[in-house]
């Protein structure tokens, strides 16, 4: 996996930079669907989710663009960890059948 360490680091760096800079650079105009909903008069049908974690790419209590930048970094980190974790888990199951602890459930697959 060493061969891909630089790929992962470079990719995450680019993703992080895009997420951070989006806090300042991204257009705040309504996007395609929102604009259509506005013009065609169904925007008010949208329902609140009823809960908030990081609403609208901001961290509650932190103001301004920095809030979005932080939320973006958190997002990049968590989504990368989820995807990498899931991938390595699947691989461990496949490659290490019988040895790995992850795949107890698929003994009958083959």
């Amino acid at each position, binding site marked *: 996996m060493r061969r*891909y360490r630089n790929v992962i680091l470079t990719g995450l760096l680019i993703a992080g930079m895009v997420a951070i*800079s989006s806090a300042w650079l991204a257009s*705040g105009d309504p996007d*395609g*669907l929102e*604009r259509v909903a506005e013009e065609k008069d169904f925007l008010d049908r*949208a329902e609140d989710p009823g809960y908030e974690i990081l609403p609208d790419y901001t961290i509650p209590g932190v103001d301004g663009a920095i809030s979005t930048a932080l939320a973006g970094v958190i*997002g990049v980190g968590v989504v990368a960890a989820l995807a990498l974790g899931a*991938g390595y888990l699947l691989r461990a199951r496949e490659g290490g059948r019988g040895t790995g602890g992850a795949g107890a459930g698929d003994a009958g697959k083959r």
Partner: protein
Amino acid sequence: MMSITQAAIQVTSDGPGMHIPDGFVSAPVAAAGWVAMVGILAVAVRVTNRELNEKAVPLMGVMAAFIFAAQMMNFPVAGGTSGHMLGGALAAILLGPWAAMIVMTAVVGFKSVLFQDGGIAALGLNVLNMGMLTALVGYASYRTAEPLLRGNRTALLASVSVAAWISVEVAAVSTSLQLAVSGSSPLDVVLPAMVGVHALIGVGEGLITAAALGFIMTTRADLLPQRRPASSSTGRG
């Protein structure tokens, strides 16, 4: 000073983000979206699990992170409207359609749950439109054009951007159908509007997709899929 802060707040908290929020689609349509998403995801996991090679895992992780970030970067199109990359075509051309669908499900699902971008009930439809359809259509369009290109780099990147553009338009059509069936807006109203604005957003998608693939071709061409049908390493009974 005050007004700068004010403006910054306004930019970052400007309405819903917007994947389909709950309420735009009716309960049956949303439920059908969930069923379709789960079914397709199950197939994608099975296929990917069988074909997963060493480089796929890090690439899937990096792709997920990049697409997550790229979706935050709204770019302006005409008339006070913005758009952002979807990413399904890029992921599919790089990883294959099935692995791409897993990546896109992770990204779109995560955005809905953690960032309240897109409703939970509507999540199946959002994943279907922005992740699965884009991956499938982007990949199919690209593979259709690929044999005609004879390895010409410029032609390849051009066809990649066209494939990405088509994928956005198909997602817009699919979303319009769901909105119409849900009674949010008649099809003859919502369809031209969605297809029109996403024709512009799709140009952005095409440019970013081609730029990202061009960057990978230049820096790490070994990460691109090798199209050799004679990969007999999976022969087992």
